[in-house]
């Protein structure tokens, strides 16, 4: 009898042990599954964070760079305008000084206008200050231009007086064609047509 009781007790103990082990296994499984699921959640959430960050970074940095480019362009444009303004001042100084540089310049401007226009008889218009300078140059210029153009050229001083920094307007005697070679017109033309070259000189040597 005692032996039987011991056997039953032993069997119960084994059964209890097995139940405990199963429970522990089950508990461990619940935790492992939870950890695996948590890992998947973390990965998913981190991916969302990375996507938000990447989107933000792309847009914000692109905007900063764009604003920077605009700022640089504005500064370059401003510096170009300063150079143009200073050039206009310098041209005024040269014209007022009556130096040979200006006299030679006026002659080139008359010659250019006469060469560009069709015809052989031209009137030259200038401001009050330059009228005498122009008048004194006409005979000599007629010879030079006639030679270049291969025709007998007649130049005369027009009666109207221009309000200009300097330079001339060349027009055909019949007034049908006109070439504006005043300093303002020349400066505007140079600014418009040579902005690339001017910027190149102005920015020469700038390091990125």
């Amino acid at each position, binding site marked *: 009898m005692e032996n039987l009781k011991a056997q039953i007790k032993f069997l119960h103990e084994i059964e209890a042990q097995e139940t405990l082990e199963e*429970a522990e296994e*089950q*508990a*461990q499984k*619940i*935790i492992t*599954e*939870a*950890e695996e*699921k*948590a*890992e998947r*959640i*973390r990965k998913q*959430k*981190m991916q*969302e*964070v990375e996507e938000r*960050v990447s989107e*933000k*970074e792309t847009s*914000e*940095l692109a905007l*900063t*760079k764009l604003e*920077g480019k605009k*700022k*640089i362009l504005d*500064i*370059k444009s401003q*510096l170009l305008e*300063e*150079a*143009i303004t*200073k*050039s206009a001042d*310098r*041209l005024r100084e*040269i014209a007022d000084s009556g130096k040979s*540089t*200006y006299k030679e*310049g006026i002659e*080139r*401007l008359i010659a*250019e206008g006469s060469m560009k226009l069709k015809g052989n008889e031209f009137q030259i218009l200038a401001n009050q200050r330059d009228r005498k300078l122009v008048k004194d140059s006409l005979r000599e210029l007629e010879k030079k231009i006639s030679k270049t153009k291969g025709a007998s050229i007649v130049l005369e001083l027009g009666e109207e007086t221009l309000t200009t920094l300097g330079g001339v307007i060349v027009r055909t005697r019949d007034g049908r064609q006109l070439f504006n070679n005043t*300093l303002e017109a*020349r*400066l505007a033309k*140079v*600014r418009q047509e*040579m902005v690339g*070259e*001017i910027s190149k*000189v*102005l*920015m*020469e*040597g*700038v*390091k990125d």
Partner: protein
Amino acid sequence: MAESKEKARRILQDAQTQERYDAIFESRLREIEDKKKLTEKDINEKIGRIKKTATRNLEKTVSFIVGQVLGE
């Protein structure tokens, strides 16, 4: 068993806590701000170099423009 379920619940809750990811996001935003500041600094330095160069080249540029205007 109840203890394990409670532990599993805490593990999942911890993984789902939004504050943790918001904190990471905020930290990354600060990194972006730093990059922006660095970019702005680069731009300002470049502007400084441009101004310096233009000042140095102004006289040469004026001579070039005047020469073009006078047809030299």
